[in-house]
């Protein structure tokens, strides 16, 4: 443990990445506070309600996407919402979906991977089959088809689709397919672990299966789990943005990076600035997470240490 922290501390890229990630998490947590200090909120249509911000065509009047002292990152073409607070609250959307999905993935993946790895036999064959089926599933298409059905089937015509339902559906879809790679890795790890002397020893002194799985195997798999989730998380962030880009992710008026990028591509000829902010933000965010994931793996895996 200490050795790992020591390795991590010497990895400069990893530290910077960690700081960037921590910064994003901090921004997400403090979003309402920052918005209050800044004096704007992400849902008000400033450009439509205040004169002189948007042209009749809906484009920002000021150059560079309407950037000014009042609107630091400019205003959204069309509705005239504040880009800065949209981005700020967009972090919350991305992080919430990604962390919730990763949490479910970790629980499912560990439970199934370790159990099946230890049991072997019939359970193992059934598991491999299910994993293969799930890996072959066209996740994106499934979600594209599923999202309108959820809207019309489970929501009363007189009610808005509640935000929790949108989030839950997204998280469940990501989790339903995301646990497979993790569980497969753990299954292999556990299969080799269970032949090791310490497990044999535990068995020899008459430890129960439960004891062996919980006390002997689990403590030895947390490293691959940690590596897996730090790498899976940015993947989910981009997947969520991609769904919103296609128009089936989190819906208006909840701020969302993918939707901002989609809008940016629509107005790119007239207002390229609008594309920059969500584009650069998502790039930084995902890059930081990926670099962090790399560093975590380097620190945990003695073979890749440089």
């Amino acid at each position, binding site marked *: 443990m200490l050795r790992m922290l020591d390795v991590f501390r010497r990895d400069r890229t990893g530290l*910077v990445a960690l700081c960037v990630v921590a910064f994003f998490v901090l921004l997400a947590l403090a979003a309402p506070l920052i918005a209050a200090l800044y004096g704007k909120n992400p849902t*008000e249509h400033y450009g439509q309600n205040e004169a002189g911000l948007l042209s009749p065509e809906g484009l920002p009047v000021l150059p560079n996407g309407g950037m000014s002292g009042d609107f630091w990152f400019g205003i959204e073409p069309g509705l005239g919402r504040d880009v800065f607070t949209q981005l700020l609250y967009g972090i919350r959307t991305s992080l919430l979906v990604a962390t919730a999905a990763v949490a479910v993935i970790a629980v499912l993946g560990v439970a199934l991977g370790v159990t099946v790895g230890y049991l072997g036999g019939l359970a193992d064959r059934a598991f491999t089959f299910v994993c293969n089926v799930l890996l072959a599933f066209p996740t994106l298409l499934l979600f594209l088809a599923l999202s309108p059905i959820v809207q019309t089937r489970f929501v009363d015509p007189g009610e808005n689709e509640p935000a929790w339902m949108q989030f839950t559906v997204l998280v469940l879809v990501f989790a339903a397919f995301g646990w497979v790679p993790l569980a497969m890795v753990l299954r292999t790890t556990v299969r080799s672990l269970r032949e090791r002397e310490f497990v044999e020893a535990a068995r020899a002194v008459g430890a129960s299966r439960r004891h062996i799985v919980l006390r002997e195997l689990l403590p030895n798999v947390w490293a691959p789990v940690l590596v897996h989730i730090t790498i899976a998380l940015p993947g989910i962030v981009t997947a969520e943005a991609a769904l919103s880009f296609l128009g089936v992710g989190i819906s208006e008026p909840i701020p969302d990076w993918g939707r901002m990028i989609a*809008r940016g591509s629509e107005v790119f000829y007239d207002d390229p600035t609008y594309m*920059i902010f969500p584009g*650069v933000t998502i790039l930084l965010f995902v890059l930081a997470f990926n670099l962090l994931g790399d560093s975590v793996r380097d620190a945990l895996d003695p073979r890749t240490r440089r």
Partner: protein
Amino acid sequence: MPRISSRTAVPLVAAASAMLVLCSCSAGAGSKSDEAATRTEADLVAGVGSAKDSAGPAPAVAGARKGGTVRVANLRDFSHLDPQKIYAGETYNTSLLWGRQLTQYQVVDGKPKLVGDLATDTGKPSDGGRTWTYRLKDGIAWEDGKPITSKHIKYGIERTFAPGFEVGPSYWPQWLTGKSDLAAAREVYGGPKKDGDFDRIETPDDKTVVFRFHKTQSDVPFMAAQSSSSPVRPDKDTGAAYDLKPFATGPYRITVHRQNQSLTLAKNPHWKADTDPIRHQYADKFEFTFEKKELNTAQEILNGRGAGADTVTTKNEFPPELIGEANRDAKKKDLIVDGRRGAFSSHLVIRNDRVADLEVRKAIHYLFPRQQARQALGGPRVGDIATTYSSPAIVGWQKYDTNPVAPTGDVKKAKEHLAKAKKPVKSLSYAYEATAVNDRMAQVLVDAFAKAGIELVTKPLPLPAYTNEVLRGTDPKYDLWMSTSSVDWPTPATGVPYRFDSRRDSLDNDPRYRNPAVDKALDRIARTGDATKKAKELIALEKDTIMKDVPLVPFLHQRVQQVRGGNVGGAFIHPIYGTISPAWLYLKKS
């Protein structure tokens, strides 16, 4: 906390800020507005012309030259070319190049007038409007030189009864049999192949066509201008193949039509300009090409690249992405052709049986933020803010404003009406087709309704569900939705009597509007024999009775933008059909 190494952090931040500097070069839109520049049309259109107006040739287009090949580039090929199957303004418009009808709209300086085309005038009614007689001109011929006779007109109209022709309008079958729908009309007469001659259309000689209707019909001259009223020669009727290559009567004939690839037109040597008060024959050829991306086509035309200077689009609309670029360059802006999209109007439909309280409907009228909603859709280019149900592009239109309201909405007035409502309104539901732009417009409405304490529940539906449940469903569970509609010809006769008659089904009367006085008035007006008089009465009914009940909220009289090459002259948006009309085009240099 470990120290952050500056060596790694700096390049990242630098790269990010460099990107910002590089890309943040977009100019602001400025506060200018182009609103004034684009509003040129006359409001009242399509008066009925005299026999003198109906004689050829068409008034020359100022500065027009002969010769050259005009190119038309559209993303999609025409879905139908068979004259009796065409039922879209843009194809009506283009088919003028090769097809002629009994009557047609002569357009001079953007002002349309209904005149006789193959007929010597717009038709003579007798027997209280139940009999209409048309006399054909001399010298009208098919592309092989044979004369067009009254039998060909009769045969063309008889085809509209036949199976396969339900894609076209069904007014002729309904009127000639006195039945209210096509299926019932077909039981009386099933088309020329099945039932031979139809005795309700008489051809006493080669030059005379007589229509005998069961009831008074006032709008026959306008129906006679529809593509359905084109002649078809029985020996040239190739059935399904006629939909690809109809036999020409107009100034051009179709030489080659490769479906979804190209359509080539050459001059029709047997068309005589003296007989045609509408069309021109300036270009030698028309070359249509299909399937090129709309954005690429528009960019080629704007920049005059390749054949761009000789090209127009008649179906593609100008891509909104390029509007900014075009507006910044006067030369490019000049190439954009802007006009009214025929009589197309958008309305916020209120389901009247769900929102039965007039005070609530009035509150919706005052709350609806027309200007903000239009801004979310793209601004003034998408349409003019409407105060009337009917479009200014129809006969008899009057400007009126039953409940005047600022285009941004009036929350105070809305609250006053809400206070008078029998039951307080907490929430309303708004259904729309799920697209990004509609999502944004829905947010505009949510914002506006919230100001009066109403939660607007938004229901984005995929297009098929929206069409089936809301537009075509008998019982959509929503209070509000947006609808765009037009009329079949520029009188209110195919608009007002359909939408506001409580005895009609929800396909016609989608607001589920119910006012017995209006039903009675519609029955009375239906017996009017004169189209113009009838139009005026319908508009008066709309203004004085219907709109006072606020069955829906007028939103926009739509506009359309298309693009023409720098070398193409005579391009304007046809005031009836709402697209660039090729029959007026010429090349400035060839």
